[in-house]
């Protein structure tokens, strides 16, 4: 059997690995579509053939369930996202995030080095939970008003990553899962934002009405709760569970 899955953009890399293992272990096939949760919502409401949604938030699955498009009682948190302030340049972001307060990078001795940054990439807070979390962090640090003029907004977290990865923005708030490869931050410099600075970015999965009765859909949701999948999600990609 095969199951058609709508996957939030930030979960792209982990889900590709999980789907591979899922297919090997169960013989079912997972057909993955990646995109933004808001767009998936609109598509599901209008008859898209998705059977499982792995959302970037916990509100959309709840909403779908209330509206009868999600199967009641099938919702669960498959991952909790971590936010990271990231730069492609080595040494640009210090491990305390002081670069935000000073408005420019600092070196180990605490002396100012490069020119002040003029752009800070964040995901659109209205659309992306990682964007909303970034706003919370800036608010808690008391830097919201000061840094707002420097924002450049990605439509989703994948685009925000692209802005920083192409160095069009020297630094930005992205998902830890995007910059982690094999459990390590693969390049540049980063400050993993302490979890207490924002409400947890809970990412919920839900079985959709079109997936009801499909054994592959049920198997996939079960598989996401397995220790094997959890270990992968946590250690390789930096999510919490």
């Amino acid at each position: 059997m095969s199951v058609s899955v709508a996957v939030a953009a930030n979960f792209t890399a982990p889900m590709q690995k999980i789907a591979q293992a899922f297919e090997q272990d169960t013989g079912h096939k997972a057909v993955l579509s990646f995109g933004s949760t808001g767009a998936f919502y609109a598509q599901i409401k209008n008859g898209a053939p998705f059977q499982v949604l792995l959302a970037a938030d916990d509100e959309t699955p709840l909403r779908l369930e209330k509206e009868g498009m999600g199967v009641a009682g099938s919702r669960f948190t498959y991952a909790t996202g971590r936010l990271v302030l990231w730069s492609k340049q080595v040494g640009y972001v210090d491990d305390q995030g002081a670069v935000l307060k000073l408005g420019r990078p600092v070196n180990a001795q605490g002396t100012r080095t490069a020119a002040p940054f003029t752009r800070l990439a964040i995901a659109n807070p209205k659309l992306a939970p990682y964007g909303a979390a970034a706003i919370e962090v800036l608010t808690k640090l008391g830097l919201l008003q000061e840094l707002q003029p420097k924002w450049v907004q990605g439509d989703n977290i994948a685009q925000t990553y692209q802005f920083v990865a192409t160095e069009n923005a020297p630094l930005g708030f992205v998902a830890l899962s995007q910059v982690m490869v094999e459990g390590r931050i693969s390049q540049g410099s980063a400050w993993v934002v302490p979890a207490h600075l924002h409400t947890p970015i809970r990412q919920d999965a839900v079985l959709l009405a079109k997936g009801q009765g499909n054994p592959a859909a049920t198997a996939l949701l079960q598989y996401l709760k397995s220790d094997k999948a959890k270990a992968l999600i946590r250690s390789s990609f930096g999510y919490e569970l």
Partner: protein
Amino acid sequence: MNLDAISLTLKLASLTTLVLLVLATPLAWWLSQTHSKWRAPVGALVTLPLVLPPTVLGFYLLIALGPNGPLGQMTQALGWGVLSFTFTGLLIGSVIFSLPFAVQPIQHAFESMGTRPMEVAYTLRAHPLVAFFTVAVPLARSGFLTAAILSFAHTVGEFGVVLMIGGNIPGQTRVVSTQIYGHVEAMEYAQAHWLAGGMVVFSFAVLLALSLLRKRWGRVMP
């Protein structure tokens, strides 16, 4: 918020059209007159934005305008800074994106008037520039009209490029098309309908006006 996006879109489309008419006129003239071996490759290059997906243009613009890209290096050397996520950057993107819509109608208009009018003008010892502006341009006016209207409308309808190099900054890069996308993603369908419906009406009106004007302008010769 919607009004900001609308006025920004109109500003972007007007400026793009203006820049395009200035750039496209000599380019279209050269393409219509030359027998150079470069004619075909340049013509193909000009037409490229017509067939490329906007995401390709947007992606390469993002890289080219970025601090390590060729355009980015140039703009920084000139002291203009990095132009991605600015109105100017969006203007550059729009000009490239709509280039074929400006060049092709003007080029076709120049081609269809033939060589005779300019030859007559030269025989009467008109300076080439004077002849160009008093003979060729008026004769090709329906081409210019089409170019202006299409450039304007195509810029208003631009989405992929803006999404890639815009950064969704209110008053700078948040235009109507990206605003609609934002409304849809945020599940604000009522607001999305207002703007999206407006776009449909606007686009229809533009195309209708274009065909009516061309009928009238195309026939009457000076």
